[in-house]
């Protein structure tokens, strides 16, 4: 595996009021991946991004980006990092092209009208380049922020809730855009409330709550390890006990004997295959059923379950 593009060790942030927003976070981000940081409100996602991007002063811990110590070589590191904030924060009176060109210069890059045009065209903003930002729709304003973050051609891009408050169509467009960035070799770290967003795009997922990183894993591995299949088989006749023909399946009798509940599998489709075998076994044993309801657990189920465990611990 290549060297991590970002390494956080023991990253801790305690705000003056005593709130511990980050609690000894260790995290490695791989070059070229899309990493989704999931967590409820106040979990520490934005603080983590802020610490890396220089908006928040960490209380303890170390941060290295591209091998540079962010506390010492911050100029080198920050020149290669882009940030799209959660809030629509930009000078609303400024024309789009001026705002994007300013961002490029701020990060030390020479003017490059061709590159700016390319970015604005990719974000469908070229026709609006002379418009004041205040005249744009919410979705376009968000795209302006993305254009500003891309203006200095970052290698590592933070997207803090990139699709918060945008409609479904635009959200899909954002997902496509993030996919294009990855194709160009940009490493993307995004925070989101929409679990389906992480499920759709992320290579790896980190779950954070109360400032603690509860889990970091490949999305597929996480689904395999923690995913489950649940199937409710509605019976024609009630059962008082499990027939021996299906005793080897992870099945329980529910709804006063009128339903069998299967809970098993691993999130890779193994559960569905077992349910199919279960129905065959039921038919072979002469047990009639009137319906089957199969549910594969989503990343959201895993997320909620992990948060529940975290709260209980």
């Amino acid at each position, binding site marked *: 595996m290549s060297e991590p593009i970002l390494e956080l060790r023991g990253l801790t942030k305690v*705000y003056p009021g005593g709130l511990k927003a980050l609690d000894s976070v260790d995290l490695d981000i791989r070059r070229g991946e899309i990493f989704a940081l999931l967590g409820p409100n106040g979990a520490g996602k934005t*603080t983590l991004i*802020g610490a890396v*991007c*220089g*908006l*928040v*002063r960490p209380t303890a811990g170390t941060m290295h980006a591209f091998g540079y110590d962010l506390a010492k*070589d*911050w*100029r*080198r590191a*920050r*020149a290669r*990092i882009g*940030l799209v*904030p959660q*809030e629509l*924060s*930009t*000078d*609303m*009176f400024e024309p789009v092209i*001026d705002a994007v060109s*300013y*961002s490029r*210069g*701020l*990060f*030390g*890059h*020479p003017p490059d009208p061709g590159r700016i045009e390319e970015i604005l065209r990719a974000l469908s903003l070229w026709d609006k380049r002379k418009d004041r930002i205040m005249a744009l729709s919410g979705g376009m304003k968000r795209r302006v922020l993305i254009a*500003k973050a891309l203006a200095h051609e970052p290698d590592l891009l933070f997207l803090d809730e990139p699709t918060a408050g945008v409609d479904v169509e635009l959200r899909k467009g954002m997902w496509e855009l993030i996919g294009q960035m990855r194709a160009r070799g940009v490493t993307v770290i995004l925070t989101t409330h929409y679990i389906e967003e992480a499920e759709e795009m992320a290579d790896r997922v980190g779950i954070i709550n109360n400032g603690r990183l509860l889990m970091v894993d490949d999305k597929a591995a996480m689904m395999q390890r923690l995913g489950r299949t649940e199937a409710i088989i509605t019976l024609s006749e009630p059962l008082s006990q499990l027939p021996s023909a299906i005793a080897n399946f992870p099945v329980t009798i529910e709804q006063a004997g009128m339903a069998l509940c299967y809970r098993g599998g691993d999130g890779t489709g193994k559960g569905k295959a077992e349910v199919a075998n279960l129905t065959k076994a039921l038919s072979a044993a002469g047990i009639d059923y009137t319906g089957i309801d199969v549910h594969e657990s989503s990343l959201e189920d895993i997320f909620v379950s992990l948060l529940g465990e975290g709260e209980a611990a």
Partner: protein
Amino acid sequence: MTGFNFRGAWSIFKREIIRAFRTAFQSILAPVLTTSLYFIVFGSAIGSRMEPIDGVQYGAFIIPGLLMLTLLGETTSNSSFGIYMPRFTGTIYELLSAPVGVAETLIGFVGAAAAKSLILASIILMTANLFVDYTIAHPILAVIYIMLVAASFSLFGFILGVWADNFEKLGIIPMLFLTPLTFLGGTFYSIDMLPEPWDKIALANPIVYLVSGLRWTFYGSGDVSFGLSLGITLGFLAACTAIIAFIFKTGWRLRA
């Protein structure tokens, strides 16, 4: 990128200058109009009936004071707004996440505020020429002194803009302290004209030294020596620089 980010500093500077011209009426025309009114009322109408002070016609005598009045007010407000607005709107995230440090930020914001004030000072001097006749005894020193004062109060404004957490605080220092102290700092009169003990008490007002210093560069005489005025201006510049260095070192009111 390891050293000073020239393009970053230039980008901030250019943007601030563009912002000033975007609001040209407020930033340039309004202060020029206000100062012109002072010249008409005090310089031409009332001034023509006043005795010369230290051999200088009254209309010409008030030019350095009026220039200082505008310079202090505009420089402070330009600079304080320049840094306060990004904090207020949240756009400061971009500045804080960029490879720019204290030097680039100051050259950008403070340099732009000082440059705007110098443009303004030039326009005011040209406007003054329409109403009163004057000559500048030490023009090079006058330019240097104006630049020093503009830089000092741009730094001061920057500190105000970082300190303020609402618009009221942003305006309170210029309105309640700076403007009254400038009016009482010998803008329209010489300290010698005040009765005892007010002529001594007036020396506690730091603006007296600034107005006097600029007046000396214009007419070769002032309420205090030019050396003292220059020393106080340089001391103020150094104090503001030290405070800003502290702000950037600790991240006070800038970084969470």
